[in-house]
């Protein structure tokens, strides 16, 4: 279990609520997904065993599957291989197992590329009130959680505190230029549609997701800069995963991964034992185990095999 990936002998680059990024050298970064979990905007005191490894290995699995759709930043998600590349990490093999990914450094676009394939969450609210999504009109009479064909691209800027701000595509153009906007939008749709189709055959609905892209620097082997997929990809943390066998449009759907956690926290709130602020309630072992089980189940369903505790495939 890894609460803080704090002891790595590398320069910290950025630390997120659940992921840490370290500098390896001028061209490479190390992403480490911790087992930390947040809900209702509060980081839980407990960790969810295997969560970090599942997120990293799901991203790795998708990137290999989607290689013909999009170039990406992954160099390795195999801990032994990473340690051969970055020998300073030798003493940390155990804590990094499965959860680390060595990636190329890029200049990341300041845009969250959100693609929505089902009408849910804030998109459903907007549709209810205005009949639109990301400002564009949708057909009348859609229900909550209905499938959207084609999926809708709705960009957001990265704001502090995880509350990204939805922006129009025109605004995105003014931020990053017309060619990049067209390219990011096209790539986002392609990757999402390919992922949605694959997941559907495995009993998982990916209702919506968020991608990030970066521009490679021409210092590497290539002289030409290109746009590649970075960050985590089609994971339960970057997407809304629903179990397909209980899909029932017309209302909200349970979350594949965090539902046990949310149910527990909701019950604590309703019982007046938690006000939604720090400190969050202590999570009972059943809730931790159930949530951990959900992550492992998602990995198994998607990839067809259990998570290898050694993190190599």
């Amino acid at each position, binding site marked *: 279990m890894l609460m*803080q990936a*704090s002891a790595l002998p590398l320069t*910290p680059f950025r630390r997120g609520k659940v992921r840490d990024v370290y500098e390896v050298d001028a061209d490479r970064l190390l992403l480490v997904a911790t087992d930390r979990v947040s809900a209702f905007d509060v980081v839980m005191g407990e960790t969810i065993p295997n969560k970090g490894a599942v997120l990293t290995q799901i991203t790795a699995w998708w990137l290999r599957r989607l290689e013909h759709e999009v170039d990406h930043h992954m160099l390795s998600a195999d801990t032994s291989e990473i340690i051969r590349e970055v020998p300073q990490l030798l003493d940390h093999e155990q804590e990094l197992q499965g959860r680390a990914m060595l990636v190329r450094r890029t200049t990341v676009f300041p845009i969250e590329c959100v693609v*929505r394939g089902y009408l849910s969450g804030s998109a459903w609210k907007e549709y209810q009130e205005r009949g639109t999504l990301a400002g564009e009109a949708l057909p009348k009479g859609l229900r909550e959680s209905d499938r959207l064909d084609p999926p809708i691209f709705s960009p957001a800027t990265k*704001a502090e*505190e995880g*509350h990204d701000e939805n922006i129009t595509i025109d605004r995105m153009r003014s931020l990053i230029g017309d060619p990049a906007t067209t390219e990011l939008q096209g790539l986002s749709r392609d990757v999402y549609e390919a992922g949605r189709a694959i997941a559907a055959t495995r009993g998982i609905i990916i209702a919506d997701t*968020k991608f990030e892209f970066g521009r490679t620097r021409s210092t590497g082997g290539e002289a030409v800069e290109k746009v590649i997929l970075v960050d985590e990809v089609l994971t339960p*943390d970057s997407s809304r995963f629903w179990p397909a066998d209980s899909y029932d449009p017309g209302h909200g759907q349970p979350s594949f991964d965090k539902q046990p956690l949310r149910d527990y926290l909701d019950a604590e709130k309703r019982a007046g034992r938690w006000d939604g602020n720090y*400190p969050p309630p202590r999570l009972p072992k059943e809730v931790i185990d159930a949530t951990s089980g959900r992550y492992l189940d998602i990995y198994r369903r998607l990839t067809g095999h259990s998570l290898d505790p050694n993190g190599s495939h």
Partner: protein
Amino acid sequence: MLELWSAATRHGLWRRLWLALAEGERELGVAIPDEAVRQMRANLDKIDFDAVAAYEKRFRHDVMAHVHAFGDVAPAAKPFIHLGATSAYVTDNADLILMRRGLDLLRRRVLDVLRSLAAFAEKWRDQPTLGYTHLQPAQLTTVGKRATLWMQDLVLDIEDIDYRRRTLPFRGVKGTTGTQASFLELFQGDHEKVRRLDQLVTEKMSFPAPLAVTGQTYTRKLDAFVLSVVAGVAASAAKFSGDVRMLQSFGEMEEPFESEQVGSSAMAYKRNPMRAERIASLARFVNSLEANANQTHAAQYFERTLDDSANRRLVIPEMFLATDAILVLMANISSGLEVHPAVIERRLAAELPFMATEQLIVRAVRAGGDRQVAHETIRKHSLAAARALKDGADSNDLLERLSKDKSFGVKLKDLEGTIDPKRFVGRAPEQVDEFLRDVITPLFAGESARSERAEELRV
């Protein structure tokens, strides 16, 4: 809002901050037993204020009094509470949390007001009324359009609140003069762990980031920033209250009046705009305090001086509480505003013929007249009609005078046709529609998306 500034909330936050500090230190390897953390968690809100008072009498130090009172109920934690910290760790961080929550509460109230005013503006979107510049009758506007002016001020306030709310930093874990020396000692020279502790506690309290550097306290500029947003809300409300009071004086519009409400102890017939007056009264108080915050910042020497303390304890809660009261009043007034179209139209009728002079000239020329002659005729009769009104005439008879003037050559009926008030309001009704559609509806749509996002969403 009263609860927010209560001792129970403030000192409950101190205990939460001590817990977050202990948890963070523990996660980073300080040997704090689980039992200590457990006891702290179990006693976050069980504060014995009598015990605190007794300690404070001995120590003459409020933070230490609370440390001891907390230690009494969480004995296993007693050796670790406040480890490495200075008073400002709890006092300053708690103030930031309180101010942020205060902004959230004000924001909700502003939205309530906007909801009422949106319904009001829509209902009266095309009711013509006299517009005033220099407090003198000018061109016409509509009752609803005037309401959008009040609303727009509040929308701008919300944008300001949102910006401050989103970017307000945490003081974090910085130590006595802000150098984190005590924490560097605690972590035996491990700079990275000190940085992590700062960030970890900031995250636990759901702030976007700690201030990069501080003295003992966070820069008092943050207070000035936040309180200027609060004062902005009060100013918007004061402008609204001024308009309501004047319209009530004209008899065009009145704030709500309960069936048994008494206007004056002596003048039984009176119906006073006392709620709007109370807004004006409180807003003047709030606005007088705004400058104080920057003065406090300006008066801080080096890493901190204590002359901020007693002042801030009054100014911050009072500005929030008074502005909260202002918004309660404003919501009440705006949901029950009574409009009296008959009075509006009567007052309009007295001025309208003067405002129509441009159109009257055109009408005369269309009937074969000479523009310069028509202008002179109107000037002459306008002055006479205005004089007559001031001398006691009960209506504006400019049109009658013109119709009787052979040189003008237009019949009364045709003249009256030119002065339908709806022809003088320009795009006011459409501006109301557009404002509601383009500004207010998206704001409310964003609002429900926002409340849903608060339920934890990544997408």
